[in-house]
């Protein structure tokens, strides 16, 4: 089998030249301003199941997108085609749209003076010299460890090793042009346990910018197997109001919901339950939520945002109080506020936490539900009403009693944020949001 070709930093100059060529074409066709992103990505994905290779996929994607302005009117176009004709036609398509769009006072590039000038090196590119055969071998080791872990592991739903590298360059007609190469590698394992006529599946995975730093393949398989087996015998509990402990990997979602609720797009659309809450106490006083965008090798790191502004470290919440919204140039203008350099999102959110790990939080909860699985979308962003399918474990006397399934948990996010009792020290490191398990004082659990 052939090894994967490398897309890396050496592609940056060529992509920068393409960005400049596209900007020149847009000016030539009559755009008053524009911004362009060009990317090329390559990857290998291998899946094994039941000790055999199931798929070997080679990925290679390229493309560019342009947003251009004619005065205050805006149009966008993108394509996976390449070459001069594709550039001409794509620019023309964006221009035709801009000519028909409405005048929008808030549209346009960020101010030229705000463009990022000093860009930190974030060390995001670590290609993994792994052949398809070696990738298959690692996946097989992972799955074998899962099968060996417990006789009740009867089936598998796929163990996948992914290695991915990409290069992306952004530029605009202020003359800003910059790009970087990055990598991302992961190993995931889904196993099926069977006993007493019940089948349960669960998974485990790891992801890292450096392939060599992924958790040991066998340990991932073992964890997937243990999780699946521990779900056997799951049943609903009677409807009740109890404390709920979100495991760290799910707690990231709660803070993801929070970031969405304070993001400019939802605020100016009057679609957020946190509109107008700047300066208010939304969390307990001991809580702090920080963005740290420049951590070397971190999954969420970025030197500049989607508008070309330099990203910077800041607190969104301190002392439980909301200090800043999440704003890009456009949403900032709509709200009459400066951009927070978050066009495209937040880069590495850190949630403050205490000393207790998940085990200690289970003890502290005493009686309640430990949630390790959530289903469905169940959040109304306009009202904060939250209702989702859940699975996990029933806790009594500070100890896990039995697995739970087919229940829902419900509340309102605004209340839930205020009722955070503790954040654990068991940090989830595989996510852009770094938090431990989160204990919430009280939610409605609906069941049998």
């Amino acid at each position, binding site marked *: 089998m052939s090894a994967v070709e490398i897309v890396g930093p050496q592609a940056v100059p060529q992509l920068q030249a393409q960005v400049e060529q596209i900007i020149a074409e847009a000016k030539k066709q009559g755009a008053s301003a524009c911004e362009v992103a060009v990317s090329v990505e390559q990857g290998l994905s291998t899946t094994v199941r039941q000790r055999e290779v199931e798929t070997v996929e080679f990925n290679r994607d390229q*493309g560019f997108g342009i947003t251009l302005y004619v005065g205050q009117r805006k149009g*966008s176009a*993108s394509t996976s085609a390449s070459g001069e004709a594709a550039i001409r036609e794509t620019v023309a398509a964006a221009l035709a749209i801009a000519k*028909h769009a409405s005048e929008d006072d808030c549209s346009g590039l960020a101010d030229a003076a705000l463009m990022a000038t000093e860009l930190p090196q974030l060390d995001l590119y670590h290609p993994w010299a792994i052949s398809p055969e070696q990738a298959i071998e690692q996946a097989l080791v992972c799955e074998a460890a899962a099968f060996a872990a417990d006789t009740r592991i009867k089936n598998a739903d796929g163990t996948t090793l992914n290695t991915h590298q990409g290069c992306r360059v952004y530029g605009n007609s202020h003359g800003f042009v910059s790009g970087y190469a990055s990598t991302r590698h992961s190993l995931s394992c889904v196993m099926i346990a069977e006993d007493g006529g019940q089948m349960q599946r669960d998974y485990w995975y790891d992801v890292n910018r450096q392939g060599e730093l992924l958790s040991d393949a066998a340990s991932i398989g073992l964890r997937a197997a243990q999780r699946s087996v521990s779900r056997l015998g799951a049943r609903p509990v009677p409807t009740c109001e109890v404390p709920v402990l979100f495991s760290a990997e799910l707690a990231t979602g709660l803070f993801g919901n929070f970031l969405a609720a304070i993001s400019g797009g939802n605020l100016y659309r*009057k679609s957020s339950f946190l509109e107008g809450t700047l300066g208010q106490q939304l969390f307990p006083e001991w809580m702090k939520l920080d963005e740290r965008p420049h951590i070397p090798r971190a999954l969420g790191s970025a030197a500049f945002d989607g508008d070309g502004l330099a990203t910077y470290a800041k607190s969104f919440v301190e002392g439980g109080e909301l200090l800043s919204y999440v704003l890009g140039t456009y949403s900032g203008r709509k709200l009459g506020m400066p951009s927070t350099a978050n066009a495209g999102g937040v880069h590495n959110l850190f949630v403050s936490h205490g000393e207790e790990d998940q085990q200690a939080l289970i003890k502290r909860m005493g009686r309640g539900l430990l949630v390790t699985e959530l289903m469905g979308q169940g959040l109304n962003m*306009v009202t904060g009403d939250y209702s989702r*399918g859940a699975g996990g474990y029933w806790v009594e006397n500070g100890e896990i009693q039995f697995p739970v399934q087919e229940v*829902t948990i419900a509340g309102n996010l605004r209340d839930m944020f205020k009722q955070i009792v503790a954040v654990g020290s068991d940090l989830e490191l595989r996510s852009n949001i770094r938090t431990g398990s989160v204990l919430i004082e009280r939610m409605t659990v*609906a069941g*049998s």
Partner: protein
Amino acid sequence: MSEMLLSVSEHVLSPGGLTIDHLPSVLGELVGPGIDAADLYFQSQVSETWVLEDGIVKEGSFNLDQGVGVRAQSGEKTGFAYSNAITAEALSQAARAARSIARAGQQGRVQAFSSSAVTALYAPDNPLDVIGRAEKVELLKQIDQATRALDTRIKQVTVSLAGVWDRVLVASNDGSLGADVRPLVRFNVSVIVEQNGRRERGGHGGGGRTDYRYFLAKDGLNESRAMGYAREALRQALVNLEAIPAPAGSMPVVMGAGWSGVLLHEAVGHGLEGDFNRKGSSAYSGRMGEMVASSLCTIVDDGTLAERRGSLSVDDEGTPTECTTLIENGVLKGYMQDKLNARLMGVACTGNGRRESYAHLPMPRMTNTYMLAGESDPEEIIRSVKRGIYCANLGGGQVDITSGKFVFSTSEAYLIEDGKITAPVKGATLIGNGPEAMSRVSMVGNDLALDSGVGTCGKDGQSVPVGVGQPTLKIDAITVGGTGA
């Protein structure tokens, strides 16, 4: 060779200097020793979106995506590669990568191409071009203004229009050669209303494999279909302004006709996709011929409905779609199959091989999945419930096919008290177990309706457009995830 095959091959192959006559040799290169099956999937897609908010047409976007996916199969193994360039060199490179999964074995064969006549379920014309840009913008503005004029409690209106024109060509070593030209359009309205400091949202939309004129057509009240969506979005938002907390616990639930068919998509549909059953990972695995639902339930997956969002003249492997009976009077009758899973399970392919694009592998997917009408009067179904919930409209859903657990969330629901629909309740998630919930279906209405055409289904990270439908039906007990008593 059909006219469609000629025009699609001309469009996707010619620019890179290729013709259909080149394809057997590429397939020959792909089908070396140890390869059982191989195919090439060429695609060229144009799409656009126009969005109005704050009373102005803020943005529009256009996308052109094209490429070829190359797949080789050896037993249960699949090798796959794709390229944005459609040239002889790119094809050859992708073929070498894809066939690298083969071990030793028999030299495979390439059959001579034959394409059978297929019934076209939709017009092949580019749906983006039937009205000009100025008219699209005008339509959005007009719906926005007419909607805002309906009620002073409206605080925000978002209107969007989207269209896709997809041209695909599939060539396989089994000799099948198929082409399809697929239009797809969508129109959505979202409304935010406010009253006494309380805010709620309502949304509605529709579409199908047709063109934008569908939204301009008069629908009932001497009003355009697009305006009908706007009225419906507003109605739902206003209902939700009055909503009280939904109850919590297990109770009878009546599901409305139409879009509530999301229930079937999650509780039944995914669990009957061939791949999960070949792997034995579905709660329905090995249960063919058994009762898996109440005898009132007959459920089909039908890709052959004209102009429906989930319909396809041929699937993404070139197989004509069918109306497949999944469950008949409660008995499990059939799975949905693509070529790979049909071959490995030794059954016929049902035309359910679908993929998001050339850059994704095909797998068994639903098309339009619905339950056939029963005999009960919908009002009689409501009257039969002492205390429960009526779900008129749903948001999304999700299923764990292994344990059978599924969820869906309501976007418009009401209490049923003493056989009458009373107060609206806030959105809540409902959770059940597929086979169990379906065995508790105790009444099925005579009012089968299909959804309005906005459904998208996600599986293994791939999105495809689908349709759902059902008559009003009653489930005797399912868990409702509210916060109320």
